[in-house]
């Protein structure tokens, strides 16, 4: 009995030591939950987080929904993270409102929850939000487009190529930012498609891919063939819209603007397919998130938002080779160096 006891004691001591040895940093677990594994934006975000976690010696687990809008998988991922004893979660939520109860559970269990790229609703449901200012990104391309048209902006004919019929917040913010930047009066800023300005020809959805972009552009050209400004939710949709315009022989008369700053998108700006794009920085969001979780685990400090905003702004740059006075921008060479994907 005694021997057994001492053996048990030794075993326990060894186990304890074993657990304590890598201790400190390696003890910190973090989770990254993205919308999908298929969008290059989230692929890059994962790369950024993985690289930073390796550098800081943090154990990173990654999860992703199967498709955009796959809420259930994200809920399961958060539950798994809580169960695994992770110190923090970074999430790009598919359903920004429905995810809140399970996020609260995680915070009650002592995890730091950081929303990446997409703010939760309400935004303070997460401990912090590291994101592009999507409204600002839209505003930049709106201002640029209006400045390019100059006096003709008053009789512009604008096609709006949005993301999906469910109007996720990121799509709404970009759309509304663009309209405000262009000088169009918004109606309900939480909804696209309810504006009454006659310059807007119409809205259609693209699913954020080339095929959807082409189809949406064709549909809106059927509503009014004289479209001369095209807002696109992202650069794949812009590439599809350009193909449609080419088929109509109008590619040189139409201004396409977009948002994202992926490498193919920046190359399309350089080639004149897209007039200007607003570049965001997913790698930065992810690496900042990992650093914040480390700080939280070690010293209990929560990240602070950017002064004057309710989230931490990871920045946005206008990328164009046709700069406009009064709007700060970078050229496609610099955009190409900073692009993702």
């Amino acid at each position, binding site marked *: 009995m005694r021997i057994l006891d001492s053996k048990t004691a030794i075993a326990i001591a060894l186990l304890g030591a074993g657990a304590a040895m890598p201790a400190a940093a390696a003890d910190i677990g973090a989770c990254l939950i993205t919308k999908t594994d298929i969008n290059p934006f989230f692929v890059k975000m994962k790369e950024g987080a993985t690289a930073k976690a390796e550098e800081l010696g943090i154990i990173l687990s990654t999860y992703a929904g199967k498709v955009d809008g796959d809420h259930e998988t994200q809920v399961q991922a958060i539950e798994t993270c809580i169960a695994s004893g992770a110190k923090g979660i970074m999430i790009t939520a598919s359903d920004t409102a429905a995810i809140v109860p399970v996020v609260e559970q995680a915070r009650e269990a002592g995890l730091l929850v950081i929303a990446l790229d997409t703010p939760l609703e309400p935004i303070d449901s997460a401990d912090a939000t590291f994101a592009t200012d999507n409204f600002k990104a839209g505003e930049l391309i709106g201002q640029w487009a209006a400045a390019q048209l100059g006096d003709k902006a008053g009789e512009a004919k604008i096609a709006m190529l949005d993301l999906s019929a469910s109007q996720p917040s990121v799509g709404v913010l970009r759309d509304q930012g663009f309209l405000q930047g262009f000088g169009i009066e918004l109606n309900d800023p939480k909804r696209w498609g309810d504006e009454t300005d006659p310059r807007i020809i119409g809205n259609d*959805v693209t699913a954020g891919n080339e095929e959807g972009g082409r189809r949406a552009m064709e549909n809106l050209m059927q509503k009014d063939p004289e479209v001369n400004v095209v807002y696109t939710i992202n650069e794949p949709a812009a590439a599809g819209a350009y*193909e449609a315009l080419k088929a109509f022989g109008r590619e040189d008369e139409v201004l396409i603007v977009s948002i994202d700053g992926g490498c193919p998108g920046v190359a399309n700006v350089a080639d004149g397919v897209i007039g200007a794009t607003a570049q965001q920085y997913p790698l930065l969001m992810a690496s900042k998130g990992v650093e914040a979780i480390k700080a939280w685990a070690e010293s209990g400090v929560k990240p602070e938002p950017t002064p004057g905003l309710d989230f931490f702004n990871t920045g946005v740059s206008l990328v164009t080779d046709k700069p406009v006075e009064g709007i700060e921008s970078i050229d496609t060479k610099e955009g190409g160096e900073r692009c993702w994907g």
Partner: protein
Amino acid sequence: MVDSNRSADSGAEAGLVKASADTVAEFDADKKTALQHIQHFLHGNPAMVPVIILFVSVVAFRLIAGERFFTAFNLSLIIQQVTIIGFLACAQTLIVLTAGIDLSIAAIMVLASVVAGKFAVILGVPSIIAIPCGFVVGTLGGLVNGLLVTRLRLPPFIVTLGTWNIFFALVIWYSGSQSIRSQDIDKIAPVLKIFGERVSIGGAVFTYGSFLMVGVFLVIWYVLNNTAWGRHVYAVGDDKEAAELSGINTNRLLLSVYGVAGFIAGIAAWVSIGRVGSVSPQSFYDANLDSITAVVIGGTSLFGGRGSILGALFGALIVGVFSSGLKIAGVDVIWQRFAIGCLIILAVGIDQWLRRVSA
């Protein structure tokens, strides 16, 4: 049963069926209402239902959406827009006729397009080799489904649900989820986009891809109606055991059906590059379901053995007409989905009603 379905598609034979149906109707005219006559006629001619719906919806949208909808250009644009779904619906019909379903068909197509595109543009393989590689990938994808269905005796729904995920994962892995840009294709391998080239006839504009789609439909229609293989496809779908007893090697037949469907997806892959402009791993995520929608609206029974290949073409066109018409009429996108949902239920309802004719 089998023969009447077969002949239903044939323009020449359709007349005969109609004539004979009229004679039968006269024989027991006192027992049948006008509705039952219609039911009989439509039962013998499954492609007629979608033709009627298509005609009615074009007329309706002419009234609702007005001039801009009913131009030669817009009507031809609808054909351009449904071309890829049309190809997939053609492949899907073959499988549905055997009482199967292919959830993976769009993933096979995207995989084939990514392989052909990456070979030609990134790896510098001559297009003349890269494009057939896409066909091979498509055919192999179909054969994998066919082998799993016939060798492991798994339900097609389960098999293709699995391979849908597998092919999709391969797409993302092989492409790195990156599109290949239109401008790069133009520079290095322009022949990939050949089916996006257009010809103008009057005010209408057609792509080579649309002509090819119609060609593929006509070939498959001919094969289904005029060859032993085609007859066997219907027979296996109608009653697999009976088909086996009558001497058909049903496993070999099913394998060939899945292989042909995969090959058609491989052709669609080439055409899709012309349509989209880029090689896009993100596009056509919903196209498998869209193809099933076209098949169902086209009057092919999901229970197998009944329906027509041309119905799928009309089914795809009906969806295209609704999308275009509602858009031009200024209807919000959510109501497009609503309308197409109603169409699906209507189509299956008509199918069930027609089936009662033989009960």
